[in-house]
């Protein structure tokens, strides 16, 4: 199991009901982690509509995650 810190912005913050959480996961990549969290929090956005960020860098969905990583899923926003 891997322990990561996940931050939520915008619609994810609303749907997860928190702005961050520590997650213990069996996922090995950013994509697997997102799928797991989708199940847990009923996220409505398809992965293709957002970007994953691992340790402050934009990351592909197959980027591996390891203990202590900071992961953020960024939804696009358009308000002005």
């Amino acid at each position: 199991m891997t322990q990561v810190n996940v931050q939520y912005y915008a619609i994810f913050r609303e749907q997860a009901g928190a702005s961050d959480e520590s997650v213990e996961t069996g996922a090995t990549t950013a994509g697997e982690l997102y799928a797991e969290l989708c199940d847990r929090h009923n996220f409505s956005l398809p992965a293709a509509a957002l970007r994953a960020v691992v340790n402050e860098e934009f990351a592909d969905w197959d980027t591996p995650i390891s203990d202590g990583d900071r992961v953020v899923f960024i939804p696009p926003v358009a308000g002005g």
Partner: protein
Amino acid sequence: MNRFELSAEPLDTGKLKNGLRHARAGGFASFEGWVRNHNEGRDVGRLEYEAFAAVAEKEGTRIVTEAIERFGVTAAHCVHRVGDLRIGDLAVWVGVSAEHRGEAFVACRYIIDQIKARVPIWKKEHYSDGVTGWVNCERVSGPEPPQPALPATTDGLYVRQIALKEVGENGQRLLSEARVLVVGAGGLGSPALMYLAAAGVGHIGICEGDTLEASNLHRQVLYRRSQVGQSKAHIAAQQLRELNPDTEITVIDVSLDADNAESLFNQHDLVLDCSDNLKLKFLLNAAALRTSTPVVFASVYQYEGQLHVFDPRTGAPCLRCVWPREPNVAPTCNEAGVLGPVPGVFGSLQAMEALKQLLSLPGRLSGELLMLDLLSFRSTKISASRLADCEICSRTPDQIELPRPGEFEIALDMDLAEVDPGLRNDYVVIDIREQDEVSARPLTTLPHRHIAMSTFSLDAPPIEPDQPYLLCCASGTRSRSLAIELRQRGFAHVYSQTGGVDHLDHGHSRGGD
């Protein structure tokens, strides 16, 4: 005859004057602006005028009409040349006929002054040393515009920013020569425009096609309640001219689109994206690359926002590198709600980045995405890298096509109740809610399939390419994002029920077939 016209042909002043003759008129006054052979110490050989025609004609007509109404003259007309002109050519003609000479002179003066200040016409000077330069028509022919009544001492205007050693007199001069286009004069645009004008930016273009609504006022602090219903671009311009009469303001009161973007970008050094529309942001991104113009992007959502600068001249990643697949799911302030100071903070950050760019200050954002949550004050600066196969910035400027609205966003949301009853049965309704949601609130009034979104395979969608489908969820958000995914996979006839299952049930039973 239009009261204001652009003409690519030389003007016939005799004919123009005869057009204003009237038995009631006891006098006629006219003004002619001519091309002169020097400007600000340089010898000018010839010049070209370029107009943003649609807006120029609208604004020019408005000015002439204002003059007729305000001064009660009989008739007035103004024609401005566009295209190549030589020294001595007639560049602009204004004529006014009136009962008495007094109002004829005043109206004529008013028209030419306002035309120069408000109508988007630009002049490209060809100097005798072979160099060319764009200047606003303000500085061409005719008398200087009336100096606004300035307070006795304007010397102290910018002292607090000139005092910064990175700014100084030289920085102030750079600002006074800068031309900045602000796209969107709403929650982000309000503070951005005010700070840019207050800082002494020489020229600001305001591109905004909307009128002011009451629901804008909690965040769009440039406006007043008494102005609801008026054109935002015009009232913004009026406020900024009061704030800083030295700043030249151009009003572009139409939306930026693929037809006008390139010309507008070419007239400015820097663009601020203060829009609330993702399609428009991607259009600005493409126009930035096409014209080598940097753009400062910002977007807000409820209590937080994002800031991103794309400067095509530096090889930094573009908006498309950050969002390789155009997301169609971003909610706007109208949908998601927002607290007023949130766009206030981000619009101010845009003005700050703009000044950093114009003054070449250190620490300019370059490709990073800054995210800031104003509830917790969490901020994250995320570095992006350029995508080798980015469909925008991996191309050369002349290969870039500015995106036009495709047919797929024209109708994505649909309300079955509004479909002709004879056609409703053509749609296969799919309820994509999860099983527990369906059990809690079943859809009873019409035949449908149930495929939960969590089990809906995008690799092998369980639908037919030519069949029309209407997806339905609880609120219309999930069905919309799934419909987008399916459209992108070639299923062209997939729609999303607006308002979700409640709307569908209610609307359908009300439809009564």
